[in-house]
Every structure is written in structure tokens, then in C-alpha cells.
């Protein structure tokens, strides 16, 4: 205890307070699950926890998560390198299109892939050829990868554009060729970005219900889903959720272990010079072809399928019917994104600048609560609200708080990367030059990590726009959002009626992704064209 106290000394108390608050919020699901789990009957729990099928579920879960990580890396790494380093035309349009898949709800992506195949599939009807049914393991891996890879793409792209080119120059001077310099110098420096992206994608895949249920692949979260939806049970679902969270914890610990030992901030004097772009030359057609393929599969396909459904719908007035519903989605998603970014800042800052066991623990809890299945998260906040602040139950305030605590991890990642790349010496210099700690933060740190803060808030915004279970449980009664409008039509088999609302989610989210990228572009140093 004394040792702990000594370690904390020097941690700014205000930041510590808010970090603890954020940490406490992310403990909510774990506390809730523990309370629910305790009311179970011991024998039934023993049967459930020690059944052989859990081992299969574990293997499936790891196989699927691993598959998603490999596939997202295969998609995102070349894209990020091309966008950050090659002399591409239409760079900002390509960047936008590579981030847009984030706006596609998982259930839409799964429907789109399922709808491609089979006798009545989209491909058979439009192009006259049939492919095998996309389902099970590959169905789940492909669907999850196609809309989560932008997390990795964004992380890699910003890391690539922030690496000081001087390091590569040094490697070249010491005799490495350009590709060897890339492998030996650039790739290792991408490690934090890769880890941050993998963490967000992997934890998302662990907790996802929607895609695995539609694809019929049996992982842990699917078993939890059948407990809720088949047996209408929350006690045994709590046991399975706790087992899933234990798995999450080990992954988060591993991430911390790898990341904790390395140092990435540049140490040289002055500002880094601009990146030099490499020429694609004869490889240009392959590069554009690859980019085109990824865009077509990840954003083109779901939009085509939505338009295909729309053609069969009665006309819906976009202004009269869809816009008011969008305003409700926006009214919940925007404050949630801002609150999540505010909560994330003290956590990310302490984690990077005061890496004590406490700050690491708080960050881990944030990631664990993010990985909990969303229905479980929602129930946890129902429990919290009913027991502590019943006046706030099913109010917009509580909904926003629940979103913010649940998805805070998404805002932490980009802030953490930004802080790691910005040397503490700069803050120290500001202090030496007479700034107070608050002023140094405001004038030096915040401007440097602005992009990270904005990127994180956008990720939260986009996820909230398509979120379902928490919204079902905690939105004010009658507060029907775009995502709920989609669900309450697809659940009755009315895909055509759901299409305008699904399309609105994609379009409006795209708008905000575009705005966010634009704001980022204005503050970022421009890359230099090859001479």
C-alpha cells in the first residue's frame, strides 16, 4: 500500500480523480455480472461452466478472433502504406472510402454477404452466377473484417504519417535499401498502432452478437446470446459473460505487456521534416486495383444491397420520415462521443505519462467493459440506474452515460497513440518557460493530440449511431433511433422498409467521418510530393 501511494505521488490529483471516475464507470458491467452470477444455483452453474462444449466455444472464439485480426491486417496494412506513402491521386477520397465501412452496421454487412450467395442471391439475380453460401466461420470472419478493418487502417495511417523520416534516412545512410529500411525501421514503429488496432478489433469480435448469430458460428458470445434469446435467462448468461471477460482480460494484459516495454517518441531536436512519397510507377494499376477491390467489398457491397432493397420499398419521405429519426440518433450519439472523449483523456494521459499499476488497471477495465457483449452492458447500466439514480432511468442522460462508459476504449486508443508520439520534453519545456500545468496542457499537449481526440470521438459517434442492445434497454421510451427503426422492420422480415433507415445510418455517419477527416487534414502537416 505504501509502495502504491509513493508511486502515485506526482500524479496530478484532478486527472487522477477523473481517471478513477472513468475506471469506476467501466467496472459497472463486472460488478453487475458478479451480482447476477451469485444468485445462480451451484449445480447448474457447475454443469454450465465445466461442460465440454465451452472448450469448443473457446477454440472457435480464438480461431474467429485470430482470423479477423489476420484478415483486417491483410486489408489495412497495404492500404495504409499506400495512402500514407505512395503518390496516389484522389488521396483524401480514398481515405474517406476506406474509413466509411465503420458506418456499416454489422447486421447489414452480414445480410449483404448472406444475400450475395445462394439461388436467389444478389449475384445470381444480377450477374447470373451462384456462389456457395457464405456462413459459419468464414462468413463471420469476412463480415466482421469488412467493417472493422478501418480501425486498423486509421491507426496505421496516422502512425505512418507521424514517424520521423529522419530515422529512415539514418537507416539508408547505414546501408539499408528502401525496402529493408521499411521492414527494419518503419514496421517495428508501427507496433503500437498495430496493437491498438488489433485490440479494438479483437475485443469487438469477442463481444459481437449480431454477425455471429446471423452467420450461425458458435462462439462464446453466441452461447451468451442463446441464453438470453432462447432461455430468456440472465443468470447463466452472466456466468458465460464472466468467462468471456476473463478471456478479454488475458488479451488486454498481453497487449499491455508488449506495449509497456517499448518507447516510441522521437528524441531528435526540431520538427520532423515532411514525409517523402514514393512513386508507384508501373505498380499503380495494382495499387488502384487493390484499393478498388477493398472499397467495393466493404462499402460498395452493403450500399448496393441496401439500394437493391430500397427499389422494392414503398417510397419513404427522406425529409419527413427519416430526418426526425436521424435527429434522435444524432442527439444521443454526439453527446456520447464528446463525453467518451472527455472520460478517455485522463485515462490515456495517466497511462502514457504516469504509467503506474493504477493507471494501467484503469485502462484495462475500460477495454474489458468495451468487450462485454452489448446486451450485458445495457443490462448492467439498467441495474446501476435503477439502484442508484432511478430518476435518470431511461432518460437521454443515462443513455449517453451508458454509451460513453461502454465505448470509452475507442476514444482512449487514438489519444494514447497521439500522446506516445508526442515527447514529454515539450510539456516539460513549457513548464520551464513558466506555464502552469493547466496552461502547458492547454497550449502544448492538447493541440498536439487534437487529431487523436477527434478521431477517437468520431469512432464512438459512428459506433453509437448503429448500436442496438443498449438503445433498446436505455433509450427514453418512444425515442426511436435509426438503428431501432432498422431493427423493428428487419425483425418482421420487412427488409425493404428497413433499407432507407439503414442507408441513413451509413450516409449520416459518412458525413461525420468526412468532416472529421477534413478537420484532421487541416491541422496535419502536408506530405511532400516526390520531386
Amino acid at each position, binding site marked *: 500500500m505504501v509502495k502504491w501511494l509513493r508511486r502515485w505521488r506526482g500524479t496530478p490529483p484532478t486527472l487522477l480523480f477523473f481517471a478513477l471516475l472513468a475506471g469506476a464507470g467501466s467496472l459497472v458491467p463486472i460488478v453487475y455480472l458478479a451480482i447476477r452470477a451469485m444468485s445462480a444455483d451451484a449445480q447448474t452453474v457447475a454443469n454450465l461452466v465445466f461442460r465440454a462444449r465451452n472448450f469448443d466455444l473457446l477454440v472457435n472464439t480464438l480461431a474467429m478472433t485470430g482470423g479477423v485480426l489476420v484478415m483486417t491486417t491483410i486489408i489495412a496494412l497495404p492500404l495504409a502504406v499506400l495512402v500514407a506513402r505512395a503518390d496516389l491521386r484522389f488521396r483524401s477520397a480514398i481515405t474517406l472510402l476506406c474509413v466509411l465501412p465503420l458506418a456499416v452496421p454489422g447486421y447489414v454487412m452480414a445480410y449483404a454477404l448472406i444475400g450475395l450467395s445462394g439461388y436467389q442471391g444478389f449475384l445470381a439475380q444480377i450477374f447470373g452466377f451462384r456462389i456457395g453460401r457464405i456462413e459459419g466461420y468464414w462468413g463471420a470472419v469476412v463480415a466482421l473484417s469488412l467493417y472493422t478493418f478501418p480501425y486498423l487502417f486509421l491507426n496505421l495511417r496516422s502512425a505512418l504519417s507521424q514517424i520521423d523520416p529522419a530515422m529512415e534516412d539514418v537507416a539508408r545512410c547505414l546501408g539499408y535499401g528502401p525496402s529493408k529500411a521499411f521492414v527494419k525501421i518503419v514496421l517495428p514503429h508501427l507496433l503500437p498502432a498495430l496493437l491498438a488496432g488489433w485490440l479494438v478489433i479483437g475485443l469487438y469480435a469477442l463481444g459481437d452478437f449480431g454477425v455471429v448469430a446471423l452467420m450461425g458460428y458458435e462462439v462464446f458470445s453466441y452461447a451468451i446470446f442463446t441464453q438470453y434469446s432462447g432461455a430468456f435467462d440472465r443468470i447463466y448468461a452472466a456466468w458465460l459473460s464472466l468467462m468471456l471477460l476473463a478471456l478479454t482480460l488475458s488479451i488486454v494484459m498481453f497487449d499491455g505487456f508488449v506495449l509497456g516495454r517499448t518507447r516510441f517518441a522521437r528524441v531528435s531536436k526540431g520538427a520532423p521534416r515532411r514525409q517523402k512519397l514514393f512513386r508507384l510507377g508501373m505498380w499503380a494499376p495494382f495499387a488502384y486495383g487493390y484499393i478498388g477491390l477493398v472499397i467495393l467489398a466493404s462499402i460498395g457491397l452493403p450500399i448496393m444491397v441496401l439500394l437493391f432493397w430500397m427499389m422494392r420499398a414503398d417510397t419513404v419521405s427522406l425529409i419527413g420520415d427519416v430526418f426526425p429519426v436521424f435527429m434522435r440518433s444524432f442527439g444521443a450519439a454526439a453527446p456520447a462521443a464528446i463525453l467518451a472523449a472527455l472520460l478517455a483523456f485522463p485515462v490515456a494521459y495517466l497511462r502514457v505519462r504516469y504509467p503506474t499499476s493504477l493507471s494501467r488497471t484503469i485502462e484495462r477495465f475500460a477495454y474489458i467493459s468495451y468487450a462485454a457483449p452489448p446486451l450485458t452492458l445495457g443490462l448492467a447500466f439498467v441495474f446501476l440506474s435503477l439502484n442508484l439514480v432511478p430518476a435518470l432511468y431511461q*432518460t437521454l442522460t443515462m443513455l449517453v452515460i451508458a454509451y460513453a462508459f461502454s465505448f470509452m476504449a475507442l476514444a482512449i486508443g487514438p489519444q494514447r497513440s497521439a500522446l506516445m508520439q508526442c515527447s514529454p520534453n515539450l510539456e516539460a519545456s513549457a513548464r520551464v518557460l513558466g506555464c502552469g500545468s493547466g496552461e502547458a496542457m492547454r497550449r502544448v499537449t492538447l493541440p498536439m493530440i487534437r487529431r487523436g481526440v477527434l478521431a477517437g470521438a468520431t469512432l464512438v459517434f459512428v459506433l453509437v449511431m448503429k448500436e442496438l442492445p443498449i438503445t433498446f434497454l436505455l433509450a427514453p421510451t418512444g425515442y426511436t433511433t435509426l438503428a431501432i427503426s432498422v*431493427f423493428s422492420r428487419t425483425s*418482421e422480415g420487412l427488409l425493404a422498409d428497413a433499407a432507407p433507415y439503414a442507408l441513413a445510418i451509413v450516409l449520416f455517419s459518412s458525413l461525420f467521418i468526412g468532416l472529421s477527416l477534413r478537420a484532421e487534414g487541416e491541422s496535419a502537416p502536408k506530405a511532400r510530393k516526390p520531386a
Partner: protein
Amino acid sequence: MNFDMFASRARAVAMGVALALGAASSAASAAEITVYSGRGETFVAPIVAQFEKETGVKVNVRYGDTAALAVLLQEEAARSPADIFWAQDAGALGALAQRDLFKALPEDVYGELPTIFRSRSNKWVAASGRSRTLLYSTERASEDELPGSVTELTDEKYRGRVAWAPTNGSFQAFVTALRKVEGEDVAKAWLEGMIANDTKVYRNNTAQVQAVADGEVDFGLVNNYYLPRFIKSDKDFPVAQTSFDAGDIGNLVNIAGVGILASTSNEEGALQFVRYLLSPQAQQFVTSELNEYPVTRSVVQNPSLLDFDQLVEISPEVDLDTIEDLDGTLQLLRDVGLL
């Protein structure tokens, strides 16, 4: 602005917002009811609007997934703001009835209804019904080929001619009923027999209807309301549907229904809503617009559906409260290799 200043302002704003919203939400008047609806907005909203117009009772609707709402209601228990739960299937209603979350309904609400449309516990009542039926091609299947029981589809003469959708929820509910009524062994033997008979797997009911029309298969196991959607837009659609012999498990009727929550603060209004759902007017909408079965006789029949008395006569006796063991069904479907 430093962090402490920021913090105190943020706290002040948060408190203000919380108070405003909290006050707004607790100002519910007595002439209001809250419905948790697992049924979609397209179906519920017109009925609710008509009810509000006729009674002056305001209805707040929370749309969501039936299972998620059923779990939410357990979590809320006595503190639930809901007066009514309108669920998409009997399993969810049975689960809540078992956990004593529903009030018993007065007998005059359900007394007139056939047993297939009410719970043995009298705690919920059906608002509409859907039956399992057999699709057949009007071009390639003759009347005398139609089987008397769903169990006959394992016969050699149906080899490779039948479609089913093992991942579909209604199909799984049917398998659960088969297990409960005929026993695990019969259910397993039937599934294996169907697989051995080259039954073709489709992803959902709509795909089966199209497959029969396109000539890929001659028969399909579906819910009753899919084919009418096709016939509505094409009168010469070459597919028809039929039921099995009276009492056959293949004619299982599942329901969507409502219960009044034990925690209701406006039982009178809730009861008014339940009665309205069972009224001829609402039931006419259910059958004409949704192509589902009405639960009362007092409506003009939908021409694409069976006559009410005929449905009651052919449907098997199944205690719908007991068909909530989805886990066991999924296990069985996995064992035979369908999932």
C-alpha cells in the same frame, strides 16, 4: 480554462441536464400506458394510433428485440415503467409468466378464445397467430401427393423435393414442439430422416417460397404469411400452401401476444389496450394487413388464409408455455449436423 474549472462547469451542466430530463420523464399522467413491443413499428404504430384516437389514452412504445425486452423486464421487475409486454413469440411470454411478472387477466378477456390462443396460466393472451404450413408447386405437385403428416416427408417419394430453413426461429420453435409432444427420439429420427432424404437447406422462409416458384424444389416448410406477400403482387404465382391432417404437429400455431405486467401503475388503461387488441377492428387489421391469423371469429376472413374454425380444428394441442427450451433444440440441430 484549467481542469478544475472545467470540471466544476461540467458537473453543473450534468446536474442541470439530469434534473430537467428526470423531471420530464416522471411527469406521466394516469391516462398513459407504456408498451414494450417486440413487434415491429410498421405493425404496431397503426394499431396504437387508432387506439389513442378512440380512447384518448396516450401510448408510449419502446421497440426492441423480444428477448432483450423479456430480459429487461426481469431486470426491472417491480420497478418497471412498462404496463404491457407485446412479444413476438410465446416462449418469451411463458418465461415471464413463469417468473410471476404478469398479472392474471380477467376471464372475460380470454374466455371466448380457443385454447390455442391463450396461456394455461391465464397470464397472457395471443393477439395474432401464425401457423406452420406446407408450400407446394401448383405445377409439379399433384393434390394426391400432399402428405397427411409432416413426418411423411421422410418418404422416398419426396426425396430431394422438399425445402426447409434450419436457422429460422419459427422452424426451431416447431422442432421444440415436436420434441415436447412426440419425444426426443422421434424428433431426432425425423430430422435424420429428412436429411437422408436430401431435404434442401434455405436460409429463410422467403427464399423457400422463391425456390418452389423457380422449380428448385416442389415443397417447403414455412410460416403461413410469406406466400400471401408474393400472391399479393402476382396473382398467377405458381405456388400454393396447404396444411397437414387435423392435429398434426406440422400445423403448429405459434402466436404473438400480450401480457399485463404485475408492476403496472395503470391496470385499467392496460386492460383497455388488451381488449382493443382483441377487438374486431384490430383483429381485422392483423389478418388483412399482416396476413396473420386473427384470434377471434368476428372478422372478415383473409382469402389467403384458412377459415378460423378450420385452423382451430387442425392445430395440434401444444402448451405454448413449455416451448421455450431453445437451447435443447439447438443442441439437437447441432447433433444431427444441421447447424
